[in-house]
């Protein structure tokens, strides 16, 4: 059974600081996704990582994938309040279902 583990599950950080969220998974896959969810809202696709060594950046967020280590990271640079949300990683091994981590609730404070 595929397990997807995110850490930390809760993260409070000051504006301007850097931090990394980790996503480990238990079964080989080369399809990993990062989503953002604001309270009471839907899931917004942030990054699609489809190969070993893939790195993608959007604004203050950068995601990477190491399929050999079964690890993806979401790096936050110089955090701002608008980044406060819950971030999910999800792994697809069948093509027909996303297996989600438990999510990381991020709070950026002044």
């Amino acid at each position, binding site marked *: 059974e595929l397990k997807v583990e995110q850490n930390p599950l809760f993260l409070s950080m000051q504006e301007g600081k850097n931090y990394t969220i980790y996503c480990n998974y238990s079964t080989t896959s080369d399809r990993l996704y990062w989503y953002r969810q604001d309270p009471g*809202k839907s*899931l917004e696709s942030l990054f699609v990582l489809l190969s070993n060594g893939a790195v993608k950046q959007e604004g203050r967020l950068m995601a990477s994938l190491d399929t050999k280590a079964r690890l993806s990271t979401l790096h936050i640079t110089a955090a701002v309040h608008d980044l406060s949300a819950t971030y999910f990683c999800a792994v697809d091994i069948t093509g*027909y*279902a996303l297996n989600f981590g438990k999510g990381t609730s991020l709070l950026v404070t002044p």
Partner: protein
Amino acid sequence: DTAVSQTPKYLVTQMGNDKSIKCEQNLGHDTMYWYKQDSKKFLKIMFSYNNKELIINETVPNRFSPKSPDKAHLNLHINSLELGDSAVYFCASSQDPGHEQFFGPGTRLTVL
């Protein structure tokens, strides 16, 4: 233009009732999904459809019955609702299996 839409957005009902949630996508995608998000925000796949055919039924009670009248629609019917069915249900679609999934706004179901 809304890409993936769901109705209703909120659904409050009594135990034992039967209810339906509708999902429509205007992206021309071939694959659609239902996910359940529980009170702890954990998301789990329920069903996957490809070209109107059921592909995945992920240990969901048979009180839940998806129906796909065409490739743009995937509805979810729930019989004999139970307290534990209270959750947010998300519909999603993708161009093909294994492609990026786009999520609807969710339906918050509360069973009293």
